[in-house]
């Protein structure tokens, strides 16, 4: 690939006073891909996104967005970005339509252009029939979709999505994912953050795993799982905490790796069914046994010793 990356951070750092929220991270986003920052709350995802969105000054290292420097060319960069922030900040004093219209005006678009695009975009996010509604009574999923439509009004080359589906119910999430997938097909570059491993797996071509202000791994979801985890995982739940504790020494050696969580034990193994049989033969009586494939959640656990959701 010879085109310059759309976004590039080198030793990128963000400090709030003495607190380091983003610590010398390196990453590259290429044109046309969907790139993710996966990490738990407080990892520094939003801080990174705000630097990319040119609304938070870089404290150290280098950042280029669309080949420009955010500190010098903020407005020029922002005019080519779409931003879906972590918290919806739709204008609750305006209707759905007016939200689209005024946002387009912020970009200096002519009204005739906005009229055309706004209708198209509202149809795209399936809000075409809610034009005249107030924003407040919309459901969480509708607000999120409207925020996405609004972010697309300037036909951005790069769409930043900070936790696009946090707080949505499963149905609403799937609808958002489906729309984002359509955008990806249309060639829009997506940069998103999430603390849901399924979201990262669904949407991201490539991602970095962030923890405590640092990047701990990078790659495609498949690469990350192949590199850091085993093919399968056996999840064992026990009736009591004592049983779980007593089981731990017996399980050592039953797989490539054993992790004890507050509510279950995970055994990482290449052959889940075989390991499950082995466990039964050892005389352990777990309340439930579940064999499944490894996920990014497991990668995160193996790399950091903690789970993604607190």
């Amino acid at each position, binding site marked *: 690939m010879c085109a310059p990356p759309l976004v590039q951070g080198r030793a990128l750092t963000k400090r709030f006073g003495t607190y380091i929220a983003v610590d010398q991270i390196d990453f590259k986003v290429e044109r046309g891909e969907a790139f993710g920052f996966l990490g738990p709350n407080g990892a520094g995802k939003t801080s990174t996104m705000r630097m990319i969105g040119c609304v938070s000054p870089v404290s150290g290292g280098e950042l280029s967005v669309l080949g420009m420097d955010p500190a010098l060319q*903020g*407005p020029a960069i*922002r005019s080519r970005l779409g931003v879906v922030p972590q918290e*919806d*900040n739709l*204008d609750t*004093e305006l209707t759905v339509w007016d939200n689209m219209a*005024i946002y387009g005006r912020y970009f*200096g678009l002519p009204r005739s252009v906005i009229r055309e695009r706004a209708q198209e975009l509202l149809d795209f996010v399936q809000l075409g029939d809610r034009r005249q509604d107030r924003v407040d009574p919309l459901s969480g999923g509708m607000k999120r979709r409207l925020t996405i439509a609004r*972010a697309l009004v300037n036909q951005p080359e790069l769409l930043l999505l900070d936790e696009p589906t946090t707080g949505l119910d499963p149905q609403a999430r799937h609808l958002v994912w489906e729309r984002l997938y359509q955008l990806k097909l249309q060639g829009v570059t997506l940069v998103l953050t999430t603390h849901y491993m399924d979201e990262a797996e669904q949407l991201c071509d490539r991602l970095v795993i962030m923890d405590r202000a640092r990047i701990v791994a990078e790659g495609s979801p498949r690469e990350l799982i192949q590199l850091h985890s085993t093919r399968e995982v056996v999840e064992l739940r026990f009736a009591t905490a004592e049983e779980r504790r007593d089981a731990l020494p017996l399980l050592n050696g039953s797989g490539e790796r054993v992790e004890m969580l507050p509510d279950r034990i995970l055994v990482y193994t290449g052959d889940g069914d075989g390991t499950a049989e082995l466990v039964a033969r050892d005389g352990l009586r777990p309340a439930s046994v579940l064999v499944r494939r490894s996920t990014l959640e497991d990668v995160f656990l193996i790399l950091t010793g903690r789970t993604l959701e607190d």
Partner: protein
Amino acid sequence: MTESLADLASAVPRGRILPVGPSRRRSVHVIERNALAYRRMWYVFLTGFFEPLLYLLSIGVGVGALVGRLPGPGGRLVTYEAFVAPGLLAAAAMNGSVFDTTFNFFVKYKYAGTYDAMLATPLGVGDVAHGEVGWALLRGTVYAAAFLLTMAALGLVASPWGVLAVPAAVLIGYGFAGLGLAATTWMRSFVDFDFVNLALVPLFLFSATFFPLSRYPNGVAWGVRLTPLYQGVNLERSLVLGDIRWTLLVPAVYLGALGWGGVRVASSRLARLLQP
């Protein structure tokens, strides 16, 4: 985008988003946004005009009947209505502008995330500050013009210089908009707005709005002279009653400086608050 060329011209120290100078073209969109929001609340907009008018009829005409004539600027005797009307015009300019730049601004800044949304677009913090001040002044202009027309209809505009009362009201609005915007950047919650009222009510009542400075002991009168609303009242009253002097430039410069300084302070503080 043309602004990028200008932006490139200067190098900036690390750790700051370049405060790209506000562009008039961009801050106009902030005004547009407020106009859209008020389109559905036109009656709120409309009723804003009534309050000074009601005060004029109650205190001016009602109590005025009990007061009779008193010396206006330049010492000429004027009716009490004619005395109080320009004072109310000035006070209304202050009130409207302070309300827009403190309470309304705070809601959008702290709770509604309106400015976070704007700043994700090419708009900058300076555009936001100038746009909000511009909106407050636009609204103030409409109110001031309507009030001045009412005054004229009631025969309370003694001099043709009175037409300058509208730009003077805009200047008063500007001074207080700067002050209000800057003050709001220090507010933490709605509870702090008690302080806004704590400042506005005495300014409204004691800035020679309702009675002349001669009612005060000398020392107090000097203190009152220093307040921005007194300066505004003095300016309006002199214009409407036709007492034109070069010294009227003093209140004009005072209010202009207040607005300019306030907006600058607000912009630089907002840059840090909205873009941490």
